[in-house]
Each structure stands twice: as structure tokens, then as C-alpha cells.
């Protein structure tokens, strides 16, 4: 069942990636390209953008699947860990530090922010490795980072910087280059690898913490894997694309009924489906006719995600989820 799902998703990606390269403000005819600079648009604009969508979508998808498995809650989202808000705070501070000085400043600041959130999380929750304390610590870090971000915005040196920050926070893949791919891809890859290695522990957690320990789970080791894995995948995503919410929530939830529902069998399909979702959503954002530029990806996904979340809650209330 799982193998077939993975094959279908891979096939969908194989179809979607080339199509996504052709779509955009300028449509490119694949057979007889009449567009000027077609090669330039393809290789310098659209290909890195598609690669970034795949990398970030896969990272967010796996992070969401792992988070839900770890917290044993289908409503969990990587944002709950406080890592995305931590990364966003770092990025916002880079605007203060004069981010224009170097193209590396923003992603590096964001990664430092994500790392700080990870360290704080490990420090508060790491001792005993319990899930409840971990969740509370994550929520605390998320709200603290959110408040500090708001503070930084409200005190921003110039109105121009403020609008720049706010726009960046909304998350997008527009105007990204191979440099961003170079930052995000290796970090995400390591993060995804770490999370995949946590699969067995997450399976054991299906039976609750006590039974999981009796099956040989070492809670602190699993927690460390979660922090490092989600930290790298989500931190890298925020560092290059801003905050893109709801992917980590929606994707595992959509994929779960198609698997045997074990957390470990959810991970690879969630990576593929996350990549597909982000690629398609980014394509639609690019194509949608909108005066004053294109729809920002982060906003589009939030618009899609909020009603999805609501439906999930209603389903759960009816005991269907």
C-alpha cells in the first residue's frame, strides 16, 4: 500500500516539475520557445524556484509527520515547536543589523534564531524527555519569539524597513536563486534524514510513553532527534523563504488515510506530498492574475490552511478524525 502511494507521488512530481517550469507570468512553449531569454528564465529563475519548493515542501511535510507522531496529535504543526518563530525572529533582527550588507546575513540570522529556539527547547524539556513538558516549552518559546518579533517590527528604524520585514515574514519563493537552494537543500536533507531515523521510536510512541519505553524507546534520544531534525528542516525553510505555515499540518493529515497510519510509514509520503503541494501552490501563485504583483505563497497557504484546520476540528468533534 505504502509503496504504491510513494510511486504515485513520485510520478505526480515527475509530471508536475516540468510543467511548473513552463508556467508563470511568461509562458514558455517547450517545443519552439519564442520567448526571449527562455533559457535564462528557466535555469536562473524557475528551476531554482522549483527546487526550493521541493526542498522546503519535503522538509515541512516530514517535520509535520514527525511532530504529529511525536505529540500523538493530528493537529500538531512544526510551528508548535517554536522553531519557525525563532527563525523568523532571527530573520527580523537581521533587518535591524542592516541585512542589505550581505546576502548571507538574513539566512544566517534565521538559522541562528532556529538554533537558539532548539537549544532553549532542549534546555527546558531535555532532562526527562517527556512530551507534555516539551509541548509547553515549545509553545512558550513560540509565543516569546512572536512577541519579540512584534517588538522588533514596531521599533523598526524606518517605515521602509518595517514593510520589508512584514512582507518577508509572509513567506514566498519569488526571486530566489541557486544560492538559497544551496543553503536550504543540505540542511533540509540532514534534517529529513534525522527524522527518518526517528521513525521506529515514533511507532513505539503509538502505544503511549510507558509502553514505548518498555519496547526499548529512549525518550531523550528521540527528543534530541526531533529537535535537531525539525530544527534543521524548518529552520532552513524559514531562512530562505520566510514563514510558510500549514504545510506541516495539512500534508500528513491528507496522507495518513492512504498509509497504514504508523508514523514511520507516513514520513516519506509526507515528504513527497509536501514537495508536490508547495510546487503546485507556488505555481498557482505565479499564474494567478493579481494586480500589484503575485500572491504570496505564505498567504495562499494560510488561506487554504485555516478552513482546512477548521474542518479538521469539526471532524474531530464528530469523532471522525
Amino acid at each position, binding site marked *: 500500500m505504502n509503496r504504491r502511494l510513494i510511486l504515485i507521488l513520485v510520478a505526480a512530481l515527475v509530471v508536475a516539475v516540468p510543467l511548473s517550469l513552463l508556467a508563470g507570468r511568461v509562458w514558455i512553449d517547450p517545443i519552439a520557445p519564442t520567448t526571449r531569454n527562455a533559457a535564462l528564465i528557466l535555469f536562473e529563475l524557475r528551476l531554482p524556484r522549483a527546487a526550493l519548493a521541493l526542498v522546503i515542501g519535503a522538509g515541512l511535510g516530514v517535520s509535520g509527520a514527525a511532530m504529529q507522531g511525536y505529540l500523538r496529535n493530528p493537529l500538531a504543526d512544526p510551528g508548535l515547536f517554536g522553531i519557525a518563530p525563532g527563525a523568523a525572529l532571527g530573520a527580523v533582527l537581521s533587518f535591524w543589523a542592516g541585512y542589505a550588507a550581505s546576502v548571507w546575513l538574513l539566512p544566517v540570522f534565521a538559522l541562528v534564531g532556529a538554533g537558539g529556539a532548539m537549544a532553549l527547547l532542549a534546555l527546558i524539556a531535555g532532562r526527562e524527555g517527556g512530551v507534555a513538558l516539551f509541548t509547553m516549552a515549545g509553545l512558550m518559546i513560540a509565543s516569546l519569539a512572536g512577541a519579540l518579533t512584534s517588538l522588533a517590527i514596531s521599533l523598526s528604524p524606518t517605515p521602509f524597513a518595517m514593510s520589508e520585514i512584514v512582507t518577508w515574514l509572509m513567506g514566498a519563493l519569488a526571486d530566489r536563486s541557486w544560492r538559497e537552494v544551496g543553503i536550504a537543500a543540505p540542511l533540509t536533507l540532514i534534517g529529513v534524514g534525522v527524522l527518518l531515523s526517528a521513525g521506529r521510536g515514533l511507532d513505539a510512541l503509538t502505544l503511549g510513553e510507558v509502553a514505548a519505553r518498555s519496547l*526499548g524507546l529512549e525518550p531523550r534520544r528521540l527528543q534530541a532527534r526531533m529537535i535537531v531534525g525539525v530544527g534543521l528542516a524548518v529552520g532552513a525553510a524559514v531562512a530562505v523563504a520566510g514563514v510558510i505555515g500549514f504545510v506541516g499540518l495539512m500534508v500528513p493529515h491528507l496522507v495518513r488515510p492512504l498509509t497504514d*497510519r504508523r508514523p514511520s510509514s507516513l514520513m516519506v509520503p509526507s515528504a513527497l506530498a509536501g514537495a508536490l503541494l508547495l510546487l503546485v501552490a507556488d505555481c498557482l501563485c505565479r499564474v494567478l492574475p493579481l494586480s500589484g504583483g503575485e500572491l504570496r505563497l505564505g498567504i495562499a497557504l494560510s488561506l487554504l490552511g485555516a478552513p482546512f484546520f477548521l474542518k479538521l476540528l469539526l471532524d474531530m468533534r464528530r469523532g471522525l478524525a
Partner: protein
Amino acid sequence: MTATLGCVTLSLADRLTDLTLSLHEGEVTAICGPNGAGKSTLLSCLGGLVAADGGLVTLGGRLMRNVPVQERARSIGYLPQSPEIAWDVSVEVLVSLGRLPWGDAGAKIGRDAIEEAIAAMDLGALRNRRVSRLSGGERARALMARVLATCPAWLLADEPLANLDLRHAIALMRRFREQAGKGRGVVLVLHDLATAMNFADRVIVLDRGRLAADGEPAHALRSEVIEQVWGCKAGWLGERGMRALSLG
């Protein structure tokens, strides 16, 4: 305290004082006692889930804390009180989780163990059913099959009969007896004294962390012990194996 499982000696944390036990494979041992007596603590210590500071638990002649986690997980199956199943998996997938300590759910040995556990619990017809669709009795069987799939030498269960009606409770107790008959050491925390009396080979009575009685059910659960530990006047009626407790 010190307890021994078969060759398991267990020694325990602050809830339990000066307790020395030696448990045996091939026996059903019931742990009884009033609320707060330390029954679950004792079971967790026996399962190696709680470090027994100031106490020693040994498994196969080795101190529990020196037994590698993986090896402990393979030798001791543990069914917690009010077990949880977070995801709506099928019975077969649930049972396969029992192979996690071996990491071989996909291999022949693992498959065989899973099949055997499913057969032992008569779950063949339910194997593809999701756990949310199971009745209470079926769920209890599925959870026990999960523990059996590990093929542990020891089977520890904390109040396995909670939430089961009479028929299912008795059916489950028979299955525990069967497992003891196959040479496994079965250790159960039981609330119902009549069940302990009728099904256990040995009863350990705890009272506020102390060992109040230990031995054959008829001896460990005699009226004087019940009065002293539970503070109730009670006597046993009926034949061996079908005893009922009459409260005075």
C-alpha cells in the same frame, strides 16, 4: 527493596521499602494491595521502567540497570494500565509494533511471531480491522497480542482486566494462564482479589510499600491478611479455583 524475576531480582524506588522478591517463570504471580500500596511502582521496577534507587532488580542474574535497553525490551513485555493507541492502525499493524525491539517486523522470524501472537489471541478474523472499531474485549486481546509478538520471557500487565466485563476478564485470565503454561513468567497487578485467588499461582500483597504477604493465594489472601491490609472483614466461600469473597 529487592525483587527477583525468575532469576530476576528487583529492587525498588522510594515507594517500596525493603522488599525482597524472587519471581519465577512459568507462574502467574498476582500483585495485590490497596490503592497507593505501590503495586504499579513495583511492576514498573520489575519492568525496568523505573530505576530502583537503593534497590536492585536483576534479570537473568544481571542487574537490570546493566541490561542493555534493547535486550530488556526483548525479554520483558509490559502492558501499562489503561493502554493507549494513538493512531487508528489495523490490528495487524498494532501487533507488529511488538517486534520493534527486534526490528524484524518485515522479516520471516518477525512475521511468524506476529502470526503466532494473532493466532494465540484468536484475532485472525479481525486482523484488518482498525482498532477504533474493536470492542473492549477485542481491544484487550489485540493489546496482549502486541506484547506476545515480542516473544518475551516475562509478561507484565498493570490491571489488565480494568474495563473488561466478566466474560472477557475470565477469557483474558485463561490466556495469561496459557502463557504461563508455555513457560513465561506472568506478573499481573490485580485489583480483584477473587481473580487473584482463582487464577494466580502466587500472590504478593503490598501494603504501603511493604510486603504484607507472599505465597500461595489461599495463604497470602487469608482473612487475617485481608483484614489487616484492607481493613475489611472477609472470608472465602466455595471450592478451590471457584472461590468468592464474602464481605462481612
